[in-house]
């Protein structure tokens, strides 16, 4: 027998379940006084640089109903295309923008709103610029392992056309599942877990 590679295995994922709010947005579900505010509920302040935008995201199940118990996190670059992260070695990101947000879907409507800024372009591995995008991570009851995808912007047609990740999508009809539609200052993004309009999810 050959030598062991001696690697550990990643802890297996388990669903966030129906009560994910208790842990991640306790104030939202009526558990007050433990944390001052829900982490990630506010992404921008008066000093944050960049164009203010709103994201309106819904997640639909295979029967076409919006999930009312999901939780979405987003991760994005600042207006100049820098991530506020120790692994960002190209330069310093806007100190007034962490670039991470967390929101539950509304228990009545299923809509989830983020007030943020439009991200700048970030280089792909080979140095080409990717189109502006926001990474999404979705968990909920019934989702066994968190779903990763990206939100791109409908008014960035040229950049989207040269984006190396969008270019990898073999079925071109599925590319629009990653593009949020601009309506005023709001980008509307519907995620579909199943069916003809199933969103492209990532394994990266």
């Amino acid at each position, binding site marked *: 027998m050959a030598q062991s590679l001696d690697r550990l295995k990643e802890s297996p994922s388990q669903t*966030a379940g129906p009560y994910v709010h208790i842990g991640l947005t306790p104030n939202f579900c009526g558990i007050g*006084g433990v944390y001052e505010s829900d982490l990630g509920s506010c992404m921008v302040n008066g000093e944050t640089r960049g164009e203010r935008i709103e994201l309106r995201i819904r997640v639909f199940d295979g029967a076409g109903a919006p999930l009312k118990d999901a939780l979405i996190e987003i991760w994005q670059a600042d207006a100049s295309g820098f991530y506020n992260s120790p692994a960002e070695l190209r330069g310093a990101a806007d100190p007034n923008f962490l670039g991470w947000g967390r929101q539950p879907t509304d228990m009545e409507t299923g809509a989830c709103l983020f007030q943020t800024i439009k991200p700048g372009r970030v280089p792909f591995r080979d*140095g080409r610029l990717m189109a502006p995008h926001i990474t999404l991570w979705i968990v909920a009851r019934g*989702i066994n392992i968190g779903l990763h995808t990206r939100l791109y912007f409908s008014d960035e047609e040229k950049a989207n056309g040269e984006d190396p990740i969008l270019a990898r999508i073999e079925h071109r009809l599925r590319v629009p599942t990653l593009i949020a539609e601009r309506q005023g200052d709001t980008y509307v993004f519907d995620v579909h877990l199943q069916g003809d309009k199933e969103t492209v999810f990532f394994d990266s």
Partner: protein
Amino acid sequence: MPEPGSNRAPETGAFFQRDRLWHPTALTPAYKSSVLRSPQKALLSFDNTLSELTGPVFGHAMLGELDNDLIHNFATPGESAIGERIIVHGRVLDERGKGVPGVLLEFWQANAGGRYRHKKDGYLAPLDPNFGGCGRTITGDDGGYAFRTVRPGPYPWPNGPNDWRPAHIHFSVFGKGFAQRLITQMYFEGDPLIWRCPIVGGISDKAAIEALIATLDMQSTIPMDALAYKFDIVLRGRRSTLFENRPEGN
């Protein structure tokens, strides 16, 4: 930006690929909620870009004094939550076995009777006025963490006609890159309900299930006060960047 609390250069290599056969698959029909909520098409695979390699990092300054004490963080001053007092501790490691410092862990659970403080939970077991059910902490230099709570009760749930969740604590974990983001559950050694649970059963490898079962750790108990359980969490590791081909500006 250096790693908070250290002068070590941050690691920037791509993450090892996720073993999707080790994790539960998206569709696990015995867990009925997965049927309409599981993607059916192939995932798009690509090597991590900066968008996955980077991630938010949280500092200890955000933590309140009682954030890692679920026995007291919702209780009326002078009172405490009802139940079997336990300490849960362990380390967050990466797949190469290295402790990961500065990891934000958030946890939530039912009370000792198996009831969640949530308007959607209709289980007959009573709420404990002194128990909220959430807590958080950040791992230390060696990846270690600890918190105090009461052992949660098992609870019935609407799935099959008579399904009960084993006692468990939900964990949310941030690594250093957003692609490491993970939610899982910790179970308790010796609980016979583990092996009957349709959610646990979504994991096909017995060794993977065992990786989620905390061990009773008598050496870490506090006599006349609290039992202790040890639970290690493993995050995706990074490839070495030694021989990586990195064009300028990346």
